[in-house]
Structure formats: C-alpha cells, structure tokens
C-alpha cells in the first residue's frame, strides 16, 4: 500500500473519529459569580442567608458516551459555621436535580439521569446560597472555586 493511500485512509479514519468524538459539554454563563456577603440578621435568629441566581448553564449531551451525571465540589473547605449550597434547575429531558447540595471538597451529584441522546439544554439557572451561623464570626472575603464535572 502506497504512502499516499495509507495517509488518505488514516485521514478518513480521523475524520470519522473526530465526528463521533465530539464531547458532551457543561458550560456556565460566567466563571465569576461575584461576592456573596452575609451581613444582616433578624435579632434573635441566625444571620440571614444570601442567594445568587444570576448565572446559568448549558448542557450538551451525546449518545453512547456513558455520561450520566454532573458533580460539583469545592477547591477548599469552607470556614467552620459557613455553608455554601448550589442548586441547578433541571433543564428537563428526564434530568433530575439533586436540589440544594451543601458543597464540600468531595464531588457530589447535582444532576443525575443525563440522557443517552444528543441534546442541548440551554440557560438553566444555577443558584448559590451562602449561610453562616453566629459561631462563624466575621469572615473576610475569600474565594472558593466550584468545579462541575460530567461523569
């Protein structure tokens, strides 16, 4: 077999491969959510939680990839007495939201039941809720990175 024929066959194989290997994707509308500041309380109660629902996600699923869920985890633990939850609205298609998940450094499911089909789910809301009890004290602004992973 000539080099020209081998090259052509390999290129054809790569083209087929590149078509079938298009990835499932999970993308967020913005990488920086902003600052969430617990700064008020009703007297006699724990400080008032703050909520941010300004960001969205787009999910593209593919057939035969074996991807069934989306997990989320933090890059570093939260200070004692501080809780950050994330909740992803189900975009439909049989995808199940785990509801508010209290984030830790361990991966936890936030969406399950991702379909075995090629589908695009766009602009579904991500909601973060930051809570702190009084024992948390004062916490200076500090970043936490949330990693979402398709698995």
């Amino acid at each position, binding site marked *: 077999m000539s080099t020209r024929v081998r090259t052509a066959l*390999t290129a054809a194989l790569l083209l087929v*491969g590149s078509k079938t290997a298009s990835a499932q994707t999970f993308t967020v509308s913005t*990488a920086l959510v902003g600052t969430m500041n617990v700064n008020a309380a009703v*007297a006699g109660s724990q400080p008032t939680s703050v909520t941010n629902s300004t960001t969205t996600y787009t999910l593209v699923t593919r057939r035969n990839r074996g991807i069934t869920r989306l997990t989320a985890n933090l890059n570093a633990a939260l200070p004692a007495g501080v809780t950050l939850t994330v909740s992803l609205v189900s975009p439909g298609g049989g995808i199940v939201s785990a509801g508010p998940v209290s984030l830790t450094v361990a991966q936890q499911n936030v969406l399950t039941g991702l379909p075995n089909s090629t589908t695009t789910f766009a602009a579904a809301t991500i909601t973060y809720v930051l809570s702190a009890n009084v024992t948390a004290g004062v916490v200076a602004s500090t970043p936490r990175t949330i990693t*979402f992973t398709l698995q």
Partner: protein
Amino acid sequence: MNASFARQSATTLGLMLAGLAGTAHAQTQTVNIQVSAISVMSLAPGTPTLIVSTAVAGVDPTPATATSQYNVTTNQTNQKIMAHINTAMPAGMSLDVALAAPSTGTSNGTIVLTTTDQNVVNSIAPVAAPNLGVTYTLTATAAAGTLAATTRLVTYTITTGP
C-alpha cells in the same frame, strides 16, 4: 494492508478511544464568600405601663413592675448592651431596668436609668437568642407626690466594648 499501516491504524484507533474515554468535562465558577460583623437587637412590640398606686401603711409606695422581651444576634465577641432614657425622671422617682443575659453574656442586674448610657448586659459572645426578659421597675417615694401619665423612651444600643 501491510503491518506498518495496521500499526498506524491501531495507534489512531487507540487515540480515538482514549479521546472518547476522556469525554468527562469540567467547568468552574468562583464565588467570593464573606461574612460581615453583625450585632442587632430588637424589642417586643408594645409599651409597658407602670403605675405606682398602692402602699403598705408606714412605708413608701410599693414599686410597680412590667415585663417585656428582647432578641439579640451577634457574630462578634465582647459585645454589650447599653440603655438610657430620653428625659430625666422627676425627683423622688426612678425607673429601673434589668435585662436577662443571653447564654454567652452577663447581665448587670438592675440598673437605675438615667439620660446617660449604662451597660445593662456585658461580655456577649456570638449568639442568636430570642425572647429574653426585660423587667422595668418604677419606684416613687412618698415625697414624689403624684404624677400624671407620662412617657419615657428607653434607648438600647448594642456595641463593642467592656
């Protein structure tokens, strides 16, 4: 197909399969988290009324008492609650107040209210405490005579300090 092309194709397929196996996709978002200093208190609604109207013969009139409640939340240490009235009491009369302390603080007991701030609860550490007791006592000597109904505004302030 010769052996060389077979190896090349096998390598290509291997790369493709590796690509498929590696379709797990990650995205990140960053949140800046912050908790500010919080110290708040509130009083139960209503206006306590104190009327000195009786006495045991031979001694000064019997003091009148009234109760109320307050709520407090702080995420700081070394907090205190101070109180003062807006106008001085008439001669021979005093208005006292005692606040129950939250579990992380210390009550100063009964304080005779004046127009100057005085500590009524000290050393409050982080706490969220509802429905703590407030007790007012109005005392009048016989020499104070009678007094038509009047009001005093008691102002409470929670702040940092000894």
